[in-house]
């Protein structure tokens, strides 16, 4: 009985998913950077659903919607990572966490509490790195940077994520090349 209900639920989710996906942004090529930013700021995946009216706030999705949208968001984010990769500072944080956890494992394996010093150092560094990451350039500063560098006006609602990050890349390389020739 339980398995039948589960199967029915899965069929229902698939049906809903099929209908839901028609109303959603499915790629970084069509997702406007405005909603990309909103999702990251609010953790609300409802912004993936297309709407004719531009809204700054949306209610949280239902549980079934959340399953579908989470899957969709994962695929979009992976697409983004495949195209642009992680930022260097994020990778640094990732590496630092790995280092800290390695020390923790070694402390347990070797039963050596002196490794706690290294763990503490890693924690201090991680805290500083995260703080620095949070205090980084915000979206509008980035937008201003692109606009000043590329001499274009960016409409958040019309510019896709792929376009926006391509602009960043291009503006950075342009600036780097310009600086290099000087």
């Amino acid at each position, binding site marked *: 009985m339980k398995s039948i209900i589960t199967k029915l639920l899965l069929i229902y989710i698939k049906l809903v998913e099929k209908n839901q996906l028609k109303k959603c942004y499915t790629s970084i090529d069509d997702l406007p950077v405005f909603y990309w930013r909103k999702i990251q700021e609010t953790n609300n995946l409802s912004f993936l659903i297309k709407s004719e009216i531009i809204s700054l706030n949306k209610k949280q999705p239902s549980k079934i919607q959340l399953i579908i949208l989470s899957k969709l968001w994962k695929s979009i984010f992976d697409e983004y990572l495949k195209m642009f990769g992680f930022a260097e500072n994020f*990778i640094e944080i990732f*590496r630092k966490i790995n280092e800290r956890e390695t020390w*923790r494992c070694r402390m347990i394996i070797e039963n050596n509490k*002196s490794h706690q010093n290294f763990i503490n150092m890693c924690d201090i560094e991680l805290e*500083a790195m995260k703080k*620095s990451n949070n205090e980084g*350039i915000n979206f509008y500063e980035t937008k201003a*940077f692109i606009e000043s560098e590329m001499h274009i006006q960016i409409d958040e609602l019309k510019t896709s994520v792929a376009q926006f990050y391509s602009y*960043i890349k291009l503006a950075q390389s342009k600036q780097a090349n310009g600086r290099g020739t000087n």
Partner: protein
Amino acid sequence: MAEEPIRGEQIIQPDWAANATKSANELDAAIQKLIAHTGVLAKSNLANFANNDPKNTDDINAQTKAVEQNTKIEKQNIEAKILAAQVNKKIKDEIQATLSSYSRLSLEYRKAAQAAKDLAAADILQGKAFSEATKEAINKAAGLNNQLKTIDQSMGNYQRNVGNYHSAVGNLAKGLGGLTGVVTLLGTALGINTDALITLKDTTRELIKFSKDLSHIKHLETIVEVESTVAHEANTIAVVSETVAVENATIAQKAWNYVMSINPIALLITSVALFAAGIYQLVTAETEAEKAQRKLNEAQQVGALNEAENVSYVKEKIEDLTAIQSLRIRQMKADGASETEIYQQKVKDIVELQDKYHELRLTLEANRDAESLVMNQFKKGSEEYTSHQKNVISMNRELELLKITQSETVVTTSELTKSFKDLNKEVTDSWKEMDKWVDEALKGVKTADEIKKSIADSLEDLKAWNEEQAKRREGIVIYDEEAKGVRKLSTEYDRLNKTKAGLIGGESGSGKALTDKELENDKKKNEEKINAAKKLSEQLFKIAEDRIKREQELNKQNITEIDKGIDQQLQLLIAGQKNTYDFMLRQKAKALEEQAALDKKARKEKEAQQIAELFLEFMKVNAKDGFGAAAKSLAETLLAKGLAGGLSGYYEGTEDTGAGGGLDTKGGMLAVLHPHERVLTAKQNAAIGAISNDDLVKSVMHYKIPTEKNSTVVDLQNSILISELKELNNTIKNKKELEVNWNRLNEIILTNKQNGYSVETTYKNSPIIKRNAPFN
């Protein structure tokens, strides 16, 4: 020795506290199991933190899960240690409880033993046998001692049954569940934090190992001391006994030889005497042996049981042998053996006894060897002890160095952390400063945008004004046509005046009366003229009406444009930007006034038209009778009024009077002037250019440009524009300009430009902090 107080080392005896030992075993097993378990888990989890950079969200999720797993493992590890601490406490409590009751019993025994000794000593000094009190005290002490022995034996401690040290020591580590158990138990009993000991890793482990060795050596030393004392005593006894026995044997041999060589009787007497002497010596030896036995017993009591047993064994053997010899002699006597045989047998017995003593001597030599071995062991142990002691000193030094290094590391770490924090603060401050610069730059851009927008608005206004002017010029052209019509009317008016003068009296002076026919002709002519004048008047008023309507329309359009402009300027005002809201409001007020004036003018035109119609109707009616003086006056007043109404267009002033008329050779035309108005020549007007009267007045008032210099300014509007552009240029030139760049090393380069100077600042990469464009 048996009454020695309980020493600290005894608390680590294996079975002295069975429950504690059991707990220690449990603890050790639990710790080992948990450590092994958490270690295996941590080892398996370690692979998840291989230094691979993330490629997608799965990698991030995998890391998050692995971190959670690590936290769980760490938690288990901590729980294991907490459990260990709990068991430690339990053991400590048990040991303390046991130690307390045992100590009381031991103390009681020591007191009883001391009391018994004192009483016995008093009896001996007085040379009398032990009193009842002494015996009772001895029994009490013995009873207590037996109780302690029972306890010790039940717990595997054979200290009171001297001789089992080796096995006791051998069971030490085993009973306590290995090294960890010993350390934990020892640490617990001594109040040492074993966790802290374990933390010092190998050094601590070495120290613990050494502690064990040291403890072992101390026990060996005790054993060696006891065994050495016992062996010495036994040896002394054996040597004395041997000497006595050898002497006896020699005497017996000599006696035998003498008896055999001289005569049987003498031999018999001598043999008996010698035998008696030998027996005596034997008894003496036995006494000595008994003494040795006693000493051995005493030694046994202090801890040399094995050797004492050996001596006792020898004594028993000698006793047995003596008994056998006695029995044999008796048997021989009973069997009727001769005295000689008996004596010979006795001598043989003495020899046999001698052999026995010899055997004892060999045994004692073996004991000496054993002692020597033990001594060597002791020496070796001492050397080891010295070596270990040196190691301890060395290790202590290393430990001190390690502590110093650790302190230095801590200091270095704290310095590094401080430097890192300072660096971080510096970078953060730099970023904040840069953010400020960016803000200022953005503000500058914004201000420049505003100025540009204002200029654009001004240009739009100018364009609108030009269009308006063009429309006005269009209106002026129309007005010129109207003026031409007016001129025609004026000419006709003059002609009518002349006619009128002729009719009224100008020609009356001729005195010539007109005939009916002439009058009829005149009447017809007058009617024709009036009709023509009426038509002209209608055309003229229609033109005037059309012109006013067009002017009204233009003014309405102007008001609409001003309204739009007011809205725009209002928005700028609300946004706190530069605006011309007040000016626009004034413009609107003026336009409304103009509108009211035009309305008034239209009404007057209408009124004039009605009057003109009335006048012409009146003239038509009176055409047959001629125009009298009243008609003349009426005509002058009304017509003048009607024309004046049509020609009052310059009361509001004008920038250009248009193409002009044909009143004179210079294109003159009719116009009505009012008090205190200014009239410029066409040349002066051309020099001012296309600027409204209001702007002209405003410019003159605002910029205070002297009239003499005005001739050099071609276009005041342009001068205002130029002035604003200069201002803009200065603003842009003096504005801070900030550029943020990255070089090929991905280092940030800030370029700050101001007043033509450029300052570059390069921010070197920190090994920890890097700033890139944000992505999430």
